[in-house]
């Protein structure tokens, strides 16, 4: 009679989980077929997806890229089949991108490299502002590469040499940047190696380069315009030394405005007659397609943020007149549809201004869209300001910071971080709102789609054009949206 009992003395080895709970099968059981209702829903959804794709994909994948007209497409596809006629995109994609920008067909050179370079330089200019993971040297590599490629494209002996030199420099700096890691570079700098200049210098110059590239004309005009800031700065330095800082600011502003209003064009013309350097001038009327959308969108986005911040601060100000002005402006602009403002820009201003005044239509639209975006931006930022705990303001005061320092160091960094999703939503909204300019006869992509349909060969094509336009808009808007998420992660300092 022995009392036998069995006690396991060592652990069993782990066994692989059953096949039904891992891998594809497991994932499907868990996520798609976890119950009767879910299984039915999954099957119904799959059928729906199949039906939609079965209808759309044959339409999308049609061999009509080389079709020369709608009827030609129909012949390619064969009678009775409905398929996209991509020939219209093949024929017109350049027009949809560049509008009527000189393409060499009217005689003269193809100028479309200019918007492309302006666009590429835009990225170079904004990277130091937007991303902190790109090193200072890589930013210069980007700039040199863009300029080098431009030189090669423009060709000629000078262009070739300059292009190759710039590309070579880009390659050299790029190689150095890749071959030395962060610590090694830090050590080099410690040991006295020269740092490259801050790429933000280029970002500051870019607003003068881009209009010159797009509109052309003499190079002295943007230089003269930039000189206005220099003059304003010196006026401020001297006047504030003699008369105090408030008068200094006023004198600086007045000096700069006199320079811009009266002397800039005189100066530019005078220098240009001595040393004519410039690009072929392109009128605003030639702008169109995505180039127009991007121009309007970028200017409105870039200008509306600072103006919006000022307006938001003004709205919270204790100074009565400033506050009244800001509130009045914001409420007026927000109370009026953008289309109304565009009509004011395109038609009313024409009537009010003396006949013969040539106030560029795109400039008028730019101003209106910027004002519109600023008002919305101001409210978004005010939301961020309101979300900050009162203690932050009081802490700033307690540290003895003056108003601007408190805003710059304590309030704004937090308020802007809170408002990032709202700010980027406004950006995306503004970018899409640029399509409204087709109402006043500017040929943005949507306006062009109508003009393209007016060609007998493509009359009646709707989906292909709208699909193409939607795709491009999606690319831009989706990138902006992803960037805002990246920025939120980067700035996430763990308050939650």
């Amino acid at each position, binding site marked *: 009679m022995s009392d036998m009992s069995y006690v396991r003395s060592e652990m069993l080895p782990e066994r692989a989980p059953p096949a039904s709970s891992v891998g594809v099968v497991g994932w499907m059981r868990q996520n798609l077929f976890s119950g009767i209702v879910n299984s039915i829903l999954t099957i119904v959804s799959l059928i729906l997806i199949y039906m939609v794709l079965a209808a759309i994909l044959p339409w999308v994948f049609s061999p009509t890229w080389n079709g020369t007209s709608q009827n030609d497409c129909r012949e390619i596809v064969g009678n009775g089949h409905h398929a996209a006629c991509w020939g219209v995109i093949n*024929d017109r994609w350049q027009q949809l991108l560049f509008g009527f920008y000189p393409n060499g067909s009217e005689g003269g050179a193809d100028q479309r490299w200019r918007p492309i370079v302006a666009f590429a330089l835009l990225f170079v200019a904004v990277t130091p502002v937007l991303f902190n993971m790109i090193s200072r040297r890589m930013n210069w590599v980007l700039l040199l590469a863009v300029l080098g490629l431009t030189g090669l494209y423009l060709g000629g002996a000078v262009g070739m040499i300059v292009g190759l030199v710039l590309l070579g420099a880009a390659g050299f700096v790029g190689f150095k940047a890749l071959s030395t890691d962060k610590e090694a570079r830090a050590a080099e700098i410690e040991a006295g190696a020269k740092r490259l200049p801050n790429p933000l210098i280029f970002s500051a110059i870019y607003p003068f380069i881009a209009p010159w590239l797009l509109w052309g004309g003499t190079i002295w005009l943007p230089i003269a315009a930039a000189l206005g800031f220099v003059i304003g700065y010196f006026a401020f330095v001297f006047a504030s030394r003699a008369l105090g800082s408030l008068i200094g600011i006023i004198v600086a502003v007045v000096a700069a405005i006199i320079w811009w209003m009266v002397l800039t064009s005189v100066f530019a013309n005078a220098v240009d007659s001595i040393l004519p350097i410039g690009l072929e001038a392109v009128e605003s009327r030639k702008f169109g397609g995505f180039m127009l959308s991007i121009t309007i969108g970028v200017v409105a986005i870039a200008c509306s943020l600072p103006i919006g911040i000022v307006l938001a601060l003004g709205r919270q100000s204790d100074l009565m007149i400033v506050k009244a002005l800001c509130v009045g402006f914001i409420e007026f602009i927000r109370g009026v549809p953008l289309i109304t403002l565009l009509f004011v820009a395109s038609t*009313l201003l024409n009537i009010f201004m003396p*006949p*013969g005044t040539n106030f560029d239509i795109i400039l008028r639209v730019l101003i209106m869209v910027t004002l519109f975006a600023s008002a919305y931006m101001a409210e978004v930022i005010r939301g961020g300001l309101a979300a900050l705990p009162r203690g932050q303001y009081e802490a700033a005061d307690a540290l003895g910071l003056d108003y601007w320092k408190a805003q710059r160091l304590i309030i704004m960094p937090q308020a802007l971080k809170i408002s990032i999703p709202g700010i980027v939503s406004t950006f995306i909204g503004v970018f899409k709102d640029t399509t409204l300019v087709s109402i006043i*006869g500017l040929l943005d992509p949507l306006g062009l789609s109508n003009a393209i349909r007016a060609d007998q060969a493509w*009359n*009646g094509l709707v989906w292909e054009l709208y699909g193409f336009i939607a795709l491009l808009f999606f690319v831009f808007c989706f990138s902006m949206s992803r960037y805002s998420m990246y920025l939120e992660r980067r700035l996430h300092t763990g308050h939650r």
Partner: protein
Amino acid sequence: MKKSAFLGALTVASIAASAAVAQDASTVDQIKERGKLNCGVTTGLVGFAAPDANGQWNGFDVGVCRAVAAAVLGDANAVEFVPTTGKTRFTALASGEIDMLARNTTWTFSRDVDLKFEFVGVNYYDGQGFMVAKDLGATSAKELDGATVCIQTGTTTELNLADFFRANDMSYEPVPIETNAEAQQQYLAGACDVYTTDASGLAATRATFEDPSAHVLLPEIISKEPLGPLVRHGDNNWGDVVRWTLNALVSAEELGVTSANIGELSASAGDNPEINRLLGTEGSLGEMLGLDAGWAKRAIMAGGNYGELFAKNIGEDTPIALARGLNAQWTDGGLLYSPPFR
């Protein structure tokens, strides 16, 4: 304070000065100084104005712009085409942004008188028509009682349609649409039995269908839509230039002057005195207009005479295939009747 007042005064003075300068110069002088004619066109209408893949504008209305540019500046390509929408076209003309408007605009009393424009003539006699599917079996618009009708909202066509159905004691159900492209989709999808708009637009639309022969244009034309170029009040000489350029195109067809034989006819004075006066080999008509003797010759060479322009852009050999109809010469039973060049 003093400074800003001074600046303000300076600005006002300079604007006033520029305005004075602008008003002194006649439109023709301004165009010559600018070297380009600013011509308002539509943002796109099949056959009448459309940019090609290179951004060059073509079409029947565009042809008028080019003829005027050729007459005034000697270069049919010296035109800045300003796309205008139905909403912006009149302010663009009134404000001086464009010198003339050639944008399938119907000549009406109120536009001519109240809006202070001057229609210089008619380059296309249009009218509102109906398109139905052949299957419907209708042969006359009077058989459309109870039909659903696709109609562009906010246009005169909407009012004409209501008038027509009421006058004939019929009922209809409107399907409001915004643009021609939308109308095509709706009509083909069967959302409406009938599509009504200008007859030229209907013909252009039908030409894009997969099977155009399955649709018919009904014979009734229920409105008068004389489309023509216009200028603003205030510079009659400029109005004369545009008017007589258009008349020169019409007369050239009547007189048998084409872009093919114009070189020969204008080389020296021929047997027909009116051709001679038109082409400047006799008389001084160009001088009276403030232009040179060869103005009409250049206008005709720009795109051909009226008949050639018509045939090239909207005529029977194009997909739009419009018959001359009312737009034939008066000698052929149409309405085109240019006053004599004398």
